[in-house]
């Protein structure tokens, strides 16, 4: 019979992971910590390389026989093409300013989630293969050889970065680690290493018009449901124009707003607002997606998805474009659109037809963020608002990474919220505005198989929400991004279950007093408004 260990022996078991240099740490890929690979058919339809069935759990990832050559050529081509890539590979002095700023490192304690080390995954190969110093010094100089295990490590960690760019805020050299992730993913795509949650939306958006692949007749039906729901809540019947040539404004929003709760209520909010101010606008089935998952796979995919919006604006003959509450759409618009598909000189500099305000900041892209548009309406007294309808909500605001860090949208959403809600509380300083913490699910990682990772990545954000919940009894988390609305709902359920997620324009619509409306007794979710219920509901 085996000897039973004594308690003394048992508590002497060493539970510490072995001390190893990062290059020697084992790779731990297991169900729950990776996203499923793209389906071969989808890659074929997008003309993407190496479509085949494979799994990260397999030993053999079925790479092309000349995979090494492809990767090295891919790096070489991008070093020539993107000056930023070359600079970012060369100038990092490993000062460590970024190391503890990543939500995935903070939530996991995995050193390879430190932005500097995530970049080193690629930089070590750059040094080893492209620099003399690296070739001479080898590991001592932070260089290493390109092997299949390195490729696997890239896949695991470049699909663990949400491209939120919080780390870049702290980098004294301004290195944009998100761009290193983007390039890492581009190179992985050359080998057919990508995830379905990104590539299927890219394919759907490219071929059908939106991430989910909702066809025009289905989208029309969905919008009709919303029109019915709005009438039930407000008594006002509205119309939603589609494919209207010659409209003044093309409205583009992420498809998450019309197929998934709670984004649907935000979508209803936009529609009510446009009806109330009599905006001459149109939506499009062809450009029915503000989101751009191309950003998360390759610059070529990003370009062709972004081009659809501008091609449709030209075809419909609108003057300018209004964009909904989306996150990464605004990074594409503000940082890449002009050089990819611009200049959009067939459009006019956006001017609000209601207030006459010219949006000079959108002079180049011709695209205005809806909170800029709405805050301007409020500033000019064009909306009749009753914020007391939101009095049961104690609200805090999550700055979505891309609008805040890629376009500097800081005040407008706050201004709107403070005008439609009476109870607003900020989260702690280091967790908002430019230093906001990511929801943990951005850049195409908001799939359900990645749930554990998303919960750990979202911990710093949830932790700050927990603080204002404990201190001020905050029960509402407002945000301006479709991925946030979906991801934060789940994140709150796990970490701070008493907090509900709202889009800003849902809050606007609840407070909006519409001409000809009936007495509001319920909010857009058709839940009774405390103090305003029907007698039978009380």
């Amino acid at each position: 019979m085996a000897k039973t260990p004594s308690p003394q022996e048992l508590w002497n078991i060493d539970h510490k992971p072995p001390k190893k240099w990062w290059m020697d740490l084992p790779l731990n890929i297991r169900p729950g910590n990776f996203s499923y690979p793209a389906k071969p058919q989808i890659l074929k339809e997008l003309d993407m390389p190496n479509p085949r069935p494979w799994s990260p759990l397999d030993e053999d990832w079925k790479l092309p026989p000349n995979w090494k050559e492809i990767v090295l050529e891919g790096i070489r081509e991008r070093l020539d093409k993107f000056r930023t890539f070359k600079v970012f590979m060369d100038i990092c002095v490993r000062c460590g300013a970024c190391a503890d700023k990543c939500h995935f490192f903070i939530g996991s304690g995995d050193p390879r989630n430190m932005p500097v080390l995530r970049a080193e995954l690629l930089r070590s190969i750059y040094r080893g293969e492209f620099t003399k110093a690296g070739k001479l010094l080898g590991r001592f100089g932070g260089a290493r050889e390109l092997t299949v295990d390195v490729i696997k490590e890239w896949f695991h960690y470049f699909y663990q970065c949400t491209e939120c760019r919080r780390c870049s805020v702290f980098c004294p050299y301004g290195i944009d680690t998100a761009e290193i992730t983007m390039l890492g993913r581009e190179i992985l795509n050359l080998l057919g290493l990508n995830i379905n949650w990104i590539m299927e939306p890219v394919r759907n958006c490219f071929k059908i018009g939106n991430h989910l692949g909702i066809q025009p007749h289905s989208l029309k039906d969905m919008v009709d449901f919303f029109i019915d729901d709005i009438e039930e809540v407000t008594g006002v019947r509205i119309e939603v124009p589609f494919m209207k040539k010659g409209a003044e404004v093309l409205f583009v929003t992420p498809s998450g707003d019309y197929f998934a709760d709670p984004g649907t209520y935000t979508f209803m909010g936009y529609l009510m607002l446009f009806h109330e101010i009599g905006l001459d606008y149109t939506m499009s089935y062809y450009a029915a997606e503000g989101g751009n998952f191309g950003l998360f796979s390759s610059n070529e995919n990003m370009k062709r998805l972004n081009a659809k919006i501008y091609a449709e604006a030209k075809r419909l003959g609108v003057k300018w474009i209004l964009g909904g509450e989306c996150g990464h759409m605004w990074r594409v618009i503000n940082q890449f659109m002009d050089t990819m598909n611009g200049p959009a000189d067939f459009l006019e500099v956006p001017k609000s037809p209601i207030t006459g305000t010219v949006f000079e900041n959108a002079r180049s892209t011709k695209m205005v963020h809806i909170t800029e548009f709405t805050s301007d309406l409020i500033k000019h007294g064009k909306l009749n608002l009753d914020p007391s309808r939101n009095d049961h909500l104690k609200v805090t605001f999550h700055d979505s990474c891309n609008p805040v860090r890629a376009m500097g949208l800081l005040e407008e959403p706050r201004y709107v919220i403070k005008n439609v809600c009476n109870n607003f509380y900020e989260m702690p300083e280091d967790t908002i505005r430019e230093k906001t913490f990511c929801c943990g699910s951005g850049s195409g990682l908001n799939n359900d198989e990645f749930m554990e990772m998303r919960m750990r990545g979202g911990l710093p954000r949830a932790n700050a929400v927990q603080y204002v919940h404990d201190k001020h009894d905050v029960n509402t988390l407002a945000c301006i991004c479709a991925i946030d609305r979906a991801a934060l709902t789940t994140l709150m359920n796990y970490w701070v279950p008493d907090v509900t997620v709202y889009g800003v324009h849902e809050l606007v619509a609840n407070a909006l007093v519409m001409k000809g409306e009936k007495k509001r007794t319920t909010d857009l979710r058709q839940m009774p408004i405390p103090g305003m219920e029907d007698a039978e509901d009380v």
Partner: protein
Amino acid sequence: MGESQGLSALLQKKRADIITRWAGILVDSYPSGAHEFLSNKKNRFANPVGYTIAKEIAAMVDGLINRQDIDSFSSSLDKIMRIRTVQDFKPSEALAFVYQLKGVIRECLDESLSDAEVRAGLEELDAFTDALGLLAFDIYVGCKEQLYQLRVDEVKRNTYMLVKRAKMLVEGPEGDQGSRNLV
């Protein structure tokens, strides 16, 4: 918990040492590259994991000293286990720190272990630690079950409009949002 007053007084005397060692075990369970970050940062927003470890381990050690009921440990254990459930630990690795408390206390009380009263108290404390381990196991499994539920809820939310359009939903009486409010 009914261990002797004498042991309580000893634990009180060694409180800081016990907290440091027990929290150290939790920190050491992470890869070495994260130790400095998890131990040194006390900013609760920049380092929620390190902050939670420091705060909740101290609360539990105080609970042991004050011989509190096991239910009063639920909140602290939940905060630690909720984090460890979603990190890269096997279930046994996530829970091990609870049982390692036995070793921590013995190390801290080394010179007093020959005292019969202390040894008797330690036996009771061991049984209590075992019960804490079971509580931590319940919390771990509860968190895992919640993760599975969250996955299901997301799928439901993402497909609600499509299912509704396909007229596959049976709505409740007027005003009742039926299944919509369930997800």
